[in-house]
């Protein structure tokens, strides 16, 4: 079994109505304490460059089209990772007001990272799981 993705993962982040708490923890991945570049991973600026799309938030009406377009621009094989309880569908804003029931299920997520927000270590574990799914393709 190859370990190409596990050692070289391009990650694109997509915010779909999160409270920005998950973004604080996603941002930590680029800092010296977690430094995901040590695994050969990178946060990339375009979905065209991505293997993994991390999504946060319950999904909002106004983000639905832009989220679908972002996913459509991401080449296959790709894995969507739900980061945080809202994205999974169990967070505080799921089904509240005009919010949806989780951006992850709506976008076909195959990996879930629990937490409100999840810690950077937990996000790293979810990303590793996504890389293994890609390596097993």
């Amino acid at each position, binding site marked *: 079994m190859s370990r190409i993705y596990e050692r070289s993962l391009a990650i694109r982040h997509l915010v779909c109505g*999160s*409270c920005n708490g998950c973004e604080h923890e996603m941002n930590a991945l680029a800092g010296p304490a977690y430094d995901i570049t040590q695994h050969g991973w990178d946060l990339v600026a375009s979905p065209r460059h991505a293997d993994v799309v991390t999504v946060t938030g319950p999904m909002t009406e106004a983000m639905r089209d832009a989220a679908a377009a972002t996913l459509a621009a991401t080449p296959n094989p790709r894995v969507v990772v739900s980061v945080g309880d809202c994205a999974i569908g169990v967070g505080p804003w799921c089904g*509240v007001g005009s919010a949806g029931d989780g951006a992850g299920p709506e976008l076909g997520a195959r990996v879930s990272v629990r937490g409100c927000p999840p810690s950077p270590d937990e996000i790293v574990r979810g990303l590793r799981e996504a890389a293994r799914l890609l390596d097993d393709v």
Partner: protein
Amino acid sequence: MYAEIAIAPERVRESVAELAATAQALGAYAGEKQVRYLFLRPQGVLCATVDAGVGALPSMANEMPLYDWHEREMREKQGIAFDGHPDTRRLYIGDGPVPEAMTAQGEGVNVVVVGPVHAGIIEPGRFTFSTGGETTIHLDTQFSYGHRDIERALSGRNALEIAPSIARICGGCSIARSWSYALALESLGGIECDEATEYARVVLAELERLYNHVFDLANAASGAGYGRGLTMGLGLKERILQLCAAATQHRLMFDAIVPGGVRTGVLSDPQALRADLHAVRRDVERFAKELFENRSVVRRFAGAGLLDGRTARLFGACGPAGRASGVELDVRTFCAYGAYAGLDVRIANEKGGDVLARCSVKRREIAESFRLIDASLAVLGDSSIQDPQTVECGTGRTTTALEGSRGVETLSIDVSGDGTIERLHVISASYRNWPAAARAMEGNIIPDFPLVNKSFNLCYSCMDR
């Protein structure tokens, strides 16, 4: 103390202008057929109510752009008409079409659209730059991509039960919002917290300011192309978040402040936190010194993203963004709440209005936050903090205003007899500052947008709600 006065619909313009001249205008929101203009005075929030049941009210947005978004929001959400409002576009997109951007017209004007999905790890928004050559002539912003209709959804719920939701309206200003909500419920319920609880709340609020301001300086360094500054800043933010977790069992301190006090178990070992913060403080000071002694960084900061004092005032800029442009308002001293009155807070004011001035304000506020935390922890000594008091839901309406890390955080609630929320409204510091931040881009080149933007570092979630 919160107070209300009624103003006559035919005298709205004069009355609001008069009040804004003598008090700090916070904005406006609407209740049932009523518009409520909010002002802050040293003695507390003043709410001027106007009957909006009979016809359109005059728009204040032309003379005071501060009211631009507030009026558009009331128009869309409560159906209140404002005569003469300069912008007929929708503020909230919902499932409708995205409003067309307002762009500059003329020969040679180029329009560049960015978003709503951005290249970095940031919340969604659409930015439309009208440029002449490389220089920005006008920046149009379209937000509400994160709109969940929170205020409507939380209405009808029990006031005490929704406290965890209030803490999660926005991850980066959770403590400020939990505190303002607690103050509102405690004032309606007629209870006061003991001294130790008040000092504990100051510790938590200043920890939130610390991690945000350090993060902002890191991002400003990044915007100036100084990678070492970003790395150092992110490393220091992480250390502060770990201290937040040690103090509250949550890295972003969600639910640490609850109505009636602070959650049981928060700040269980004040002196350990004090010692740990001492080590972080030394390294943060070294980081800030290095940043501000780097001449190429300072040259990028100087003159970029200029927000002049007049524009800052008219648009209602507040917090570090206001104080960097000569708007000398900090709620911690202007209308001191909690333990701040006894702490002699030293306010950071600058006049430059550029990225350098905003970063300088934050650098000085970081130093002051460390001092305030240390002083508060000294007062707490080794004593444990008492469990939160039971809050009985009072009835009525109130508005609280306090100083979050991005500026004035305003929260209004209307509670009925059985403790049900009839109306909830949040005016976040980011909502106040975004229109001014957009003006600060004029005359700057697009590649400087990350630098200018990050010198404000505003949230979207508490603005979109």
